[in-house]
């Protein structure tokens, strides 16, 4: 059976967009809460059931609308739909009644924006959905109403507005160079525009705010941890990827070799991957550690964007690797964030299982064999292989990737460490548990049936990596374990010295 893409696309966007209207009825509060996980379902069906390639023309919309689906967008749509669904399920159990309607309204609008931007091909709707997500997301960040949340919200909104303006200026210049209102026309036009560097700078910076590019990331470690846990999960899991998608659809990737910009992005990615890890292990709160881990992981994706900018031949391959990596990271990071709000069962056996399920998505991030992370890491390694890349900094990439892997595991260990001090034993609301387990299951199991494809790089699914690949995955983890052990030993000694 083929599912009609365009009709489903409209439903996928309109359902969360119209859902806030339920807030008009004071006594629909309960229904609103239980509707949360249902909102992304049409989008999920669209991502799984409809083949990419459909197009939907909406000539009356803004400056002429066009929504469509290709393989890259499909991965982003899938990630968005899945993560919002499991986070929505989790939220049913997590949320308190206070300001519930306000939270739900913001949730629906943010979701609509996040889903819409993965399908939008005309500039107007893409930018519109992007802005909707940004502004409605503010409500998720400041929801708790604490001074800390308000401060985080202020930093978030200031940087977001600056980012939006940078994007607006970049898109205006790019659209004017292209003489078109379609994103698909932009990369080629930007590549040959006289103001190329200005346009690229504006777009890199504008989307970079959302993607947590170093120096534009300040809002992220403040905002991601203070929001309610399900919101943290979608902020760090999918909304951060909207910036990445923005780059992929607007920058002149695969058009011309931009070695300067490529080098800049590679450096930025490296600084993000390593720097965020250093700052992250110093954090005391679990969700703050995870926020830095997101910046660090995004750094690796920025690295790949940089390589694709520098080497147009390699760009198409890197596209699919970036898509795969984004999907893997989004699902794993979402699960990790959701685990920050669970309680431990009383029995020892139960506790072990819960800890295992908390830890596995984290280890997946670090590239544990037989996880999505192993696949993504191997694909990245193949995609960034030195001999196939043709630009100056290519030689440093393997080193950076290894350092990134070490940093990732250190952050995950730090997260588990800080979390162990915080987790209480007790009962979880059933929906909360269901949401978390679903997230873990999707990240560890369902991932393997998702339509990612990295043809020619890694044979999918790699249930059994070759021995040399296994070693490549494992030795950075061993270094990280050694470092963590050393740190633990040192802190023990120090506390032992003081009786």
């Amino acid at each position: 059976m083929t599912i009609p893409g365009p009709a489903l696309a409209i439903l996928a966007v309109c359902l969360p967009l119209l859902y806030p209207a339920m807030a008009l009825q004071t006594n629909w509060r309960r229904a609103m809460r239980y509707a949360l996980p249902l909102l992304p379902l049409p989008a999920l069906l669209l991502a799984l059931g409809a083949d990419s390639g459909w197009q939907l023309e909406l000539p009356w919309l803004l400056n002429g609308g066009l929504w469509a689906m290709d393989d890259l967008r499909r991965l982003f749509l899938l990630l968005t739909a899945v993560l919002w669904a499991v986070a929505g399920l989790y939220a049913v159990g997590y949320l308190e009644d206070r300001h519930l309607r306000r939270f739900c309204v913001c949730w629906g609008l943010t979701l609509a924006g996040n889903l819409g931007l993965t399908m939008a091909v005309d500039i107007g709707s893409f930018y519109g959905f992007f802005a909707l997500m940004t502004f409605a997301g503010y409500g998720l960040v400041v929801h708790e109403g604490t001074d800390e949340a308000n401060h985080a919200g202020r930093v978030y909104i200031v940087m977001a507005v600056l980012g939006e303006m940078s994007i607006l200026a970049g898109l205006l210049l790019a659209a004017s160079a292209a003489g078109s209102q379609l994103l698909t026309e932009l990369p080629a036009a930007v590549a040959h525009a006289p103001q190329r560097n200005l346009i690229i700078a504006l777009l890199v910076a504008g989307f970079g705010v959302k993607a947590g590019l170093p120096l534009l990331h300040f809002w992220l470690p403040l905002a991601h941890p203070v929001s309610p846990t399900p919101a943290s999960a979608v902020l760090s899991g999918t909304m951060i990827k909207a910036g990445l998608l923005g780059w992929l659809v607007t920058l002149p990737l695969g058009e011309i070799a931009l070695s300067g910009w490529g080098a800049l992005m590679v450096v930025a990615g490296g600084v993000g991957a390593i720097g965020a890890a250093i700052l992250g292990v110093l954090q005391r709160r679990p969700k703050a550690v995870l926020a830095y881990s997101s910046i660090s992981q995004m750094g690796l994706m920025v690295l790949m964007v940089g390589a694709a900018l520098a080497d147009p031949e390699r760009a198409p391959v890197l596209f699919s690797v970036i898509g795969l990596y984004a999907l893997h990271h989004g699902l794993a990071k979402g699960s990790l964030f959701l685990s920050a709000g669970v309680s431990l069962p009383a029995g020892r056996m139960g506790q072990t299982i819960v800890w295992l399920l908390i830890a596995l998505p984290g280890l997946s991030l670090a590239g544990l064999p037989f996880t999505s992370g192993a696949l993504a890491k191997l694909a990245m390694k193949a995609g960034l292989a030195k001999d196939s890349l043709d630009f100056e900094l290519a030689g440093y990439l393997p080193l950076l990737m290894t350092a990134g892997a070490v940093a990732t595991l250190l952050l995950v260990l730090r997260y588990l460490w800080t979390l162990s001090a915080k987790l209480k034993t007790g009962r979880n609301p059933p929906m909360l548990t269901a949401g978390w387990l679903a997230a873990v299951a999707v990240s560890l199991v369902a991932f393997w049936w998702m339509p990612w494809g990295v043809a020619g790089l890694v044979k999918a699914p790699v249930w059994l990596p070759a021995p040399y690949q296994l070693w490549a995955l494992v030795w950075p983890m061993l270094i990280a374990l050694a470092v963590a052990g050393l740190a633990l030993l040192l802190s023990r000694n120090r506390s032992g010295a003081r009786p």
Partner: protein
Amino acid sequence: MTLEEWMPLFALMISLVASLVIFALPEKGYVRRTSVNLGAALLKLVVVVVMVWGVFHGVNYGVSFTMVPGVTFVLKADALSMLFAGLSAVLWLLTTIYAVGYLEDSPNRRRFFGFFSLCVASTMGIALAGNLFTFFLFYEMLTLSTYPLVVHRGTAKALRAGRTYLIYTLTGGAVLLFAIAWLHSMAGDLPFRDGGHFVGADPDIHGSLILIFILLMAGLGVKAALFPLHGWLPQAMVAPAPVSALLHAVAVVKAGAFGIVRVVYDIYGVEASSALGLLEPLSWLAAFTILYASTRALWQADLKRRLAFSTISQVSYIILGIALVGPLAAIGGLVHLLHQGIMKITLFFCAGNYAETLGIHRIDEMDGAGQRMPGTSLAFTIGAFGMIGAPPLAGFITKWVMGSGALAVDMDWVILVLVGSSLLNAAYFLPIVHRLWFREVKGSWPEERHWGRLETSPWLLWPPLLTAVATVVVGVLASLPFSPLSWAELIVLRESSP
């Protein structure tokens, strides 16, 4: 006389007659007065819709009389007229509904609604005026009919604001009259004509033309609140909310902006004004006004004062758009005539609702008002985001089209102005939105009134909700025929191929 001749007269007379009837009715004739008001507003809307349809299909509505030899009274409906007339007709209806609710139980309502209708009749005259003389006639009638509205409350502050208003506008009017007379003595009675009259004008009169242009802009710039002639506007916000709404969205400031569009397009002609070097300085002045007024708005603690400075800034978008010469930028400017009207009237309606329902006037009193008045606050939020230029709302369409237009004529600096203005708008609107929804209520409201189940009187609630919906619709559906954007494209198409 044929129907085509009658229609513009009819559109004008409806409000004029309504005004006279209201003056004739007794103060206590509440129901009759409201019926006349609403009936006239509805009737006019129908007439305007018919005319819009006609103009779209190329019907020429027009009528002229000779007053004295050499001076004619001309009413004519072209696409540009209908842009302004349409705005005026739609918003008059909503503002009337709003004013009925707002002035419930207050004294002197006969006087208020009489002048209110007169004011709308003037805007209709301005929209349909076919030459500078007719335009001037209604332009001054507008000044005189709005004065009683500004001072309606009769407080010392209101009277002071009214005096300032009169000094500014009458002086502006005198300058305008002088300029028109000078132009008349040089070139005779000039009807508004697509493409203008001075393409390839005799170089000998260039000096005079430039001087006259400056005087015309000075005269019209007072009402359009162009820097440095904007001083009256922030003071005039003491007027009752429906008056402010009308003043800021349709009547006064738009009359000035509309006049500037008429002079540039239909008297001088874009090509000629550009060749005379008049438009570039005008664009700088407009750009400066945009940024200056937005900066001033940041420091206002009073909600209506902040909105007033925002108006000064936004109206200059219209002027900037036409001063950029290119067709696309012009579309951006013209469409903002409507967009700004819809968005700003929403914000003023909401400001009025907060004042009437909760006694809130200052921004720092607005904490948590979203819980008490969700409908009004939703409308305010949409209006505010529209002003910032967030997609897919009306303001975004303006900014996108104007930005593209500026790039098309290599005026890249305009992008900086647009971005700067958006940032400033965000800086003075977003904190209010935050207060509305994300702060807890501080104790009790200054002066709370209750209306049963609804958050406020339905007369006050529906108009802002409708204009907020319109703010979304004209943005989202910008590419539909008869949307403001499509209509502005039609105007520019007809102006450039007379």
